[in-house]
């Protein structure tokens, strides 16, 4: 395999792995449920994107035909990640999960729970 393809694929894989790792790290490190939600919804998207692009390049080069079904994974990820985050946040609100003390406008979460206007 040509050197530059190996290089591009490796760089994409490493960058992707770093972002997915940061996503998981955030899940463990951040202080409360709501802040924890941010890491896996965002950092992971780019990480997965990089890995899938690496897969497109590698398979296309090795098999000799354009392989695009990885794009579907990206599409499904982009559709499901925000919906999952929304459902989790909503459930957390309705279960009265503890909110970090320094969160500004904590009172707003009560209005949100009742689905009233602020």
């Amino acid at each position, binding site marked *: 395999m040509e050197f530059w393809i190996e290089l591009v694929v490796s760089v994409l894989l490493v960058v992707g792995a770093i972002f997915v790792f940061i*996503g998981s790290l955030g899940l463990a490190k951040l202080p409360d449920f709501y802040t924890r939600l*941010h890491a896996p919804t965002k950092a992971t998207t780019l990480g997965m994107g990089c890995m899938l692009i690496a897969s497109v390049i590698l398979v296309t080069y090795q098999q000799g035909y354009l392989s695009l*079904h990885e794009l*579907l994974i990206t599409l499904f990820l982009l559709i499901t990640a925000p919906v999952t985050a929304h459902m989790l946040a909503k459930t957390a*609100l309705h279960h009265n999960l503890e909110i970090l003390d320094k969160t500004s406008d904590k009172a*707003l979460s009560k*209005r*949100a729970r009742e689905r009233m206007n602020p």
Partner: protein
Amino acid sequence: MTTSPRFRLLPMPLHSLLLFVVWLLLNNTVAPGHLVLAAFLAIAIPLLTSGMHDPQPSIHKPFVTLRYILMVIGDIVVANFEVAVLVIGPAKKLQPAFVAIPLDIEHELPITILASTVSLTPGTVSAEISEDKKWLYVHVLNLTNEEELIALIKHRYERPLREIFKC
């Protein structure tokens, strides 16, 4: 449900196109057999399910839509870096917040797209929507300026969506 006579065979043309493309991508091929099967599914599934279809505002500006998609992809990359930096940095410095964003757009589909965009991009996760669909509650990972954030979301994401769906 009333369908315009123009689209009797294809009650949901965009869904048909999407099904066609997704089927070919799933099988990773453009072989003639799969083209026929994809066409069959793209016609049959919307015909069978159009009765359950909940009418949504349609896209009026395809080019604005395309620009919006590209802009959101770019913003996702930027947001990923920002959140990664926040996650690695000290957790004590974070200033999480709940913010209520007034919505000008109506209808379920545009609001869903706005809420999803907000979840994917600028350090925010949409948490709840008010009963009358006039307010979107978001949780912000690190709030610096509330007015700025609301202005950013309204200006950058809501305005093009209003233009696209004309609502």
